């Protein structure tokens, strides 16, 4: 299933981007030629510029660590039976579709649930989808700050003596120079995301 570019933009307007910014994007991208993406082109967006998070080995990570590779980030929690595995399976399929270019994409999973997603859980969880997938975390307070900066909505919802989480399922794609370029809706398939990454990677030499 392919999401028409402009339909994707309209859908995305409801969740993360202020209407004004998105209306501008609608005009800009639906009306002119240039690199065409299935995902929402958010090049030039002022949010989600960088992060400082810890990997399961306790090392600090930021976008600069992945320079030369495109980066796709997804925010979620490991006790999520549905959306989070689906997003990470798609990321794995995207890498597969990239073939020889697969090593030019870094998949990053950022937990919104650091209370339960310990470094050990994160490491095992991401490895189940891809050996080189990276799980990142920070403190509960910093997670809130980060999510706000990235326009990711999340909240705990009590259930069965425990809690689940509502959260934005949008993935973001950064180009090999660390610039935020694309917002990928949950409903997009691997084929369209892989095509977008191929388009993006083409304009950067190895």
């Amino acid at each position, binding site marked *: 299933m392919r999401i028409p570019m402009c339909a994707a933009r309209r*859908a*995305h307007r*409801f*969740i*993360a981007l202020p209407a004004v910014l998105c209306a501008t994007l609608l005009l800009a991208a639906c009306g002119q030629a240039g690199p065409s993406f299935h995902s929402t082109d958010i090049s030039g967006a002022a949010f989600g510029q960088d992060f400082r998070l810890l990997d399961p080995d306790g090392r600090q990570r930021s976008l600069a660590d992945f320079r030369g590779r495109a980066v796709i980030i997804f925010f979620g929690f*490991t*006790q*999520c*039976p*549905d*959306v989070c*595995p*689906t997003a*990470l*399976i798609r990321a*794995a399929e995207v890498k597969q579709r990239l073939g020889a270019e697969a090593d030019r994409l870094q998949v990053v999973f950022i937990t919104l649930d650091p209370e*339960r997603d*310990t470094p*050990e*859980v994160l490491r*095992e*969880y991401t490895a*189940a*989808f891809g050996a080189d997938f990276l799980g990142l975390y920070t403190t509960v307070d910093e997670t809130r700050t980060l999510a706000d900066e990235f326009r990711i*909505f999340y909240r705990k*919802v009590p*259930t*069965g*003596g*425990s809690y*689940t*989480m*509502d*959260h*934005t*399922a*949008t993935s973001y794609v950064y180009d090999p120079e660390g610039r935020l370029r694309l917002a990928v*809706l*949950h*409903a997009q398939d691997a084929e369209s995301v892989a095509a977008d990454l191929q388009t993006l990677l083409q304009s950067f030499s190895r």
Partner: protein
Amino acid sequence: MKRIALASLFALAASSAFAQVQVSDPWVRATVPQQRATGAFMHLTSPADARLVEARSPVANVVEIHEMKMEGDVMKMRAIEGLDLPAGKAVELKPGGYHVMLIDLKAQIKEGESVPLTLVVEGKDGKREQIELQAPVRPLATPAAPASGGMQHRHGHH
């Protein structure tokens, strides 16, 4: 006499309806150590209107029937009171829709094992029936529409 015959006819109809609730392709998503929740998925088909009202499993302290919905691109997951099983219609519990949520797991759910599940289905007449099944555990990275497995169901009565 006539009344008694009718009543037993209804009882027979109800029990045969239940006896035909089919569970196909059940599976549970594997977990990594210390991951305390996961989902069970399957297809349910009831020949008569019925409702899935409860699920139980010895592997989890809490089992709920959940609905996943996308509002815009925000994922929301909620426990629901029950799931309608319209006559003759295959109701899918699959990623992107409904699932049986296994919460507060007692141990890691490992690929290759199977998870015992009890489903409680209520007919229009309020009668409840239990369906016992074994759901194979599939890898954590199992996509939404994995290869179809065989049918697997066993019936029990209160």
